């Protein structure tokens, strides 16, 4: 490289301008435009790199979020003028049976889809962690539902769950169970919808758990085996605690997903989808919001529902944060530094 005689301002780049006599200039102006440019480059580029994310988020995430909050305090029709109403929209939600029904449905469908899904994913990850022949096949197979769209999955399951000719009722028939009314009865319909969610996401979560399991140090298991702990015991006492942060992560992600449930019930219900079934038995908050905003045209009401969803998520996040913190205490000093 070029001259190293100079006191080497660490920031000054070597001169590469071909042919031009840069030497004198440099002596005259050691802090010249070139090194200033270089320092600016160093300082500014991080912001340039993160800027696209924040610009897009500001335009399509933050601004709409705030604007939705503002709209939720108005009476606005689709394409009409806004009229200030204060907290009227929220009070009307409070008095609305549809709102409470949708809230309860979101909660129950979320529960019966998230809990079995994550439990099965844990078990599946444990199995995939064995030394197995054809592991590649099993991993890809359980991930295949993840590549299926909500729309396609819901259409297929709507057929499988059909009360009159669906395959699932036929199978139940073979073992002597009467046909279940998966479409019009409340709990069967909610279970059917939860099945779609569970089917699509179990394999994905299993692979995330598998990744965490493979990072659990081997000696823990060896020590436990020496102490005579059974495989199951090792799973409960070593594997689960070791991957707790990952479990927490998947709980957060699945909860967020469950709160926003929209496509599965919409398509499962066919022409009755937007209302969440003939008796709103599986109308979720998202569906209610869509119905209010785009069918009824009451955008203020819809905005209020959206904000209730955000508040719900914040609440759930807070609870999970506290739970995660209380369970962590002891291990913290060991793992706090990276």
């Amino acid at each position, binding site marked *: 490289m070029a001259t190293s005689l100079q006191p080497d301002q660490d920031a000054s780049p070597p001169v590469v301008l071909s042919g031009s006599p840069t030497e004198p200039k440099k002596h005259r102006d050691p802090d010249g435009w070139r090194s200033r440019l270089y320092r600016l480059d160093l300082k500014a580029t991080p912001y340039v790199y993160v800027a696209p994310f924040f610009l897009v988020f500001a335009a399509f995430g933050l601004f709409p979020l705030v604007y939705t909050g503002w709209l939720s305090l108005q009476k606005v029709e689709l394409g009409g003028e806004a009229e200030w109403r204060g907290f009227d929209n929220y009070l009307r939600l409070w008095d609305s049976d549809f709102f409470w029904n949708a809230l309860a449905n979101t909660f129950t469908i979320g529960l019966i889809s998230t809990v079995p899904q994550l439990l099965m994913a844990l078990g599946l990850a444990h199995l995939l962690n064995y030394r197995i022949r054809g592991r590649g096949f099993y991993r890809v197979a359980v991930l295949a539902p993840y590549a299926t769209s909500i729309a396609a999955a819901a259409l297929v399951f709507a*057929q499988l769950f059909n009360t009159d000719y669906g395959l699932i009722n036929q199978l139940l028939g073979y073992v002597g169970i009467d046909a279940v009314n998966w479409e019009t009865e409340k709990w069967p319909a909610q279970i059917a919808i939860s099945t779609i969610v569970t089917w699509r996401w179990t394999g994905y979560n299993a692979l995330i758990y598998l990744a965490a399991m493979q990072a659990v140090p081997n000696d823990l298991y060896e020590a436990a085996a020496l102490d005579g702990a059974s495989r199951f015991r090792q799973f409960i006492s070593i594997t689960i605690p070791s991957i707790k942060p990952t479990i927490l992560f998947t709980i957060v992600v699945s909860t967020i997903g469950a709160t*926003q449930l929209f496509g599965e019930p919409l398509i499962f219900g066919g022409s009755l989808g937007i209302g969440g079934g003939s008796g709103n038995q599986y109308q979720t908050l998202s569906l209610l919001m869509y119905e209010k905003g785009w069918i009824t045209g009451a955008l203020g009401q819809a905005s209020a529902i959206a904000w209730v969803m955000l508040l719900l998520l914040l609440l759930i996040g807070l609870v999970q944060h506290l739970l995660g913190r209380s369970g962590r205490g002891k291990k913290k000093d060991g793992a706090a530094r990276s």
Partner: protein
Amino acid sequence: MTHALNRPAPAHGRPPAPRKRFGTKAGRQHHAGPFTYVLLGFAALISLFPLYWNLVAASHTGERVVQAPSPLLPGKELFNNLSIAWNQVDMGEALINTTIVAGAVACSTVLFATLAGFAFAKLEFKGRNVLLTIVVATMTVPPQLSVIPLYQLITEFGWVNQLQSVILPSLVAAFGVFFMRQYLLEALPVELIEAARVDGAHSLRIIWHVVFPVARPAMAVLGMLIFVQAWNDFFWPFIALTPDGSPTLQVALAGLGSGNHSINHAIVLTGALIATLPLLAVFAVLGKHIVGGITSGAVKS
């Protein structure tokens, strides 16, 4: 929440190599017994059966699909159904639209996520931690909160049924930024950047000649994950694009399935098959890499 995400894997678990992923380490993993194979086989069956049945249903007539013992073996109507479905809602156009949307979203997300992830992983700047926390926190904001203003916006601009109304809001993804940061934290040695700097490389050169080559495997995985996500996205496209306009596959499918009572279910399921097959084909070819990406360090804890 942030804590769960930021927390590194247990200290003792991380060091030696990102290489131990595939089968090489003999240590702990016990050999599976027959019971394990039975359970895994069952899981694979449940995962794959609905996809198989979709193919079966798409190869029968509409009347046969809704008859009591459901067909379990493929019939002869597949190509007939394909041509009907293809013309009925213009699946061809929907297929092209979806490819454009998913491709554009994947490319831009990978590019911007790599830049931002690199900055968060390896560059010092004021406010870095605060900004990173904001990025992670945005993952929890439900899309429901933005659809109403966005809808008013695209109505104002005359973008209803235009693909850009779906592409623009998805140009970046917090998940992608986080994913790339996690990867580059470990994969990119600071010395490499410093060496490049000493050699006088300016930032763009560093990005092009150092960061991108190192990040390439993660960029590929992220690209595939985002492509799958964008391909399957439903909520906002359903609002921004109507089935009679220029919809994506998912919106077209919703239109196929929700008509009146005279729906031909074989045709509907053929549509579902058309929407699923391209991605399944990608999976058959690249499945191992996608699985490797999900199970690699980048997503864990």
